[in-house]
């Protein structure tokens, strides 16, 4: 018995250290964002909101945040219907090449972001498309759609089709059945797919870094480029904290309505 509890204590301590490792960079950024000294060095000194003020006064960062939000919203708005239609076709019909098609639709998940980035850069240059919001949106739709296809397919697989038959036998036509029965039933999948699509677009660096210009830069690329050329700038603690709080709110929403374990 003594040996067993010793193992338990050791395992518990090890767990604690790993959870600390997992959460440390997030916790430290949040704590350091309220730091009052001019440089970000430890030990931290007093408490202040100076980095939040610096963030709100920084036109470039705010513009990057706005661009990221617009691109992510447009990406989600396009990826959702595209993924939904494709998932429906794959779930409901038997046709040659069906398995190959669903594998192909998920394939952007497997291709390195930098490979897609340089490929799409060369493509845009070849067709003469100037770098713009739409350039980012189109590229992001490609990497966001697989998530929608996957989550909607999973929802459709769990969906009991006799419910549709029941609705039809009660006199609802095809469209009305889909709208009143099928869509509400797969809403968790759509919600999860939408949130994944949004976050995929909003966070992307490896692909976007190839498409960004000094004037058109999404926020994560802006942070990446500044860290890469100027090192640690304390203003990013405030930017990061705002983003972390926003994302955690999304995650809690996802957990409440979908359940993270089901993803």
């Amino acid at each position: 018995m003594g040996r067993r509890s010793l193992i338990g204590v050791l395992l518990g301590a090890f767990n604690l250290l790993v959870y600390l490792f997992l959460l440390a960079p997030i916790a430290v950024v949040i704590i350091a964002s309220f730091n009052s000294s001019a440089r970000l060095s430890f030990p931290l000194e007093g408490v202040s909101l100076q980095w939040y003020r610096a963030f709100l006064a920084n036109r470039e960062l705010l513009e990057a945040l706005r661009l990221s939000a617009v691109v992510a919203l447009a990406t989600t708005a396009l990826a959702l219907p595209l993924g939904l239609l494709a998932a429906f076709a794959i779930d409901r019909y038997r046709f040659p090449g069906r398995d190959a098609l669903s594998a192909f639709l998920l394939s952007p998940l497997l291709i390195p972001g930098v490979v897609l980035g340089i490929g799409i850069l060369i493509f845009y240059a070849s067709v003469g498309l100037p770098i713009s919001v739409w350039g980012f949106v189109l590229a992001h739709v490609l990497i966001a759609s697989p998530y929608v296809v996957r989550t909607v397919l999973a929802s459709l697989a769990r969906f009991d089709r006799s419910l549709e038959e029941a609705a039809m036998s009660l006199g609802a036509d095809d469209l009305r059945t889909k709208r009143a029965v099928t869509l509400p039933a797969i809403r968790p999948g759509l919600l999860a797919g939408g949130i994944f699509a949004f976050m995929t677009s909003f966070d992307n660096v490896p692909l976007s870094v190839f498409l960004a210009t000094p004037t058109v830069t999404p926020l994560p690329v802006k942070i990446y480029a500044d860290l890469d050329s100027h090192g640690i700038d304390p203003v990013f603690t405030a930017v990061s904290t705002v983003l972390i709080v926003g994302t955690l709110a999304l995650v809690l929403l996802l957990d409440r309505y979908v359940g993270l374990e089901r993803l």
Partner: protein
Amino acid sequence: MAGSIAERVYHLKRSRWSVLAGVLPILSVYVALLVIPMLLLGQFSLYRKLTGEMGQVVLIREVSLANYAKFLASPFYFRILKDTLVMALTVTGLCVLLGYPVAFSLSRARRWKGILYLLVLAPFFVSVVIRTYGWMVILGHNGLVNWLLLASGLVTAPVPLIYNYTGILIGVTHIMLPYMVITLEAVLRKIDRSLIEAAQGLGANPWQAFSRVIFPLSLPGLVAGSLLVFALSVSIFTTPSLMGGGRIHLMSTIIYEETMGQVNWPSGAMLAWVLLVTTLAVLGLSQLAARRFEWRR
């Protein structure tokens, strides 16, 4: 019955149109942004870049294998490929060591399970660039770890923990660990507890119950998690780029450097193809290994 054939033809035609209508929109996006760019990448990898007298970039649109010959002949590129694979392998090993005990405890947890699960997943939902920034703040010259080390008197000068290989390993392991824990936990959770009770009933001590019953049954999760982490680590860009600080190059960072820094698109395209083929080979092998594993069971 007379209408049945006509009806079936009608349904077949209708379903064909439905499939097309459902799939064509997304396929057109994939053709434009995946198929064509990959083909262009292949085409550009056969071109060459020349720097003109005024320093301007000239693209030689002549098909040759010169870039690939350069890759094969260059110890520089070869070392980068080797470093990338070794880094991915090390990260996979670290994720197994750190992730297995956590996944095991998580699969046995009764109370707090939801919260623990959320804590494992939380980093997953925080932007990669922000997490890497967090590590720069913790591990940097004036960072938390160096302050603790200096304050405790263990060292007399700050230890370099970023802009080197150590930093890359810490940062990438942090990004990959949730993938490992979740894949492992999903398998561990399904192991029937009565098997362990049976083993202990037959006189096995906890260690024997673990090593002879639980561990072998968890191998599929271990294999799946390791392959996933390895494949993702081979191509990860943001974290090694920032943590390496331009001093250590991996495949993804050298592709970015050649393409955007040197403006050598043909060379970047060649390296992108090498990385793509490497990644797909790893995934293909993992598919094969997984099938073999299933078959042996």
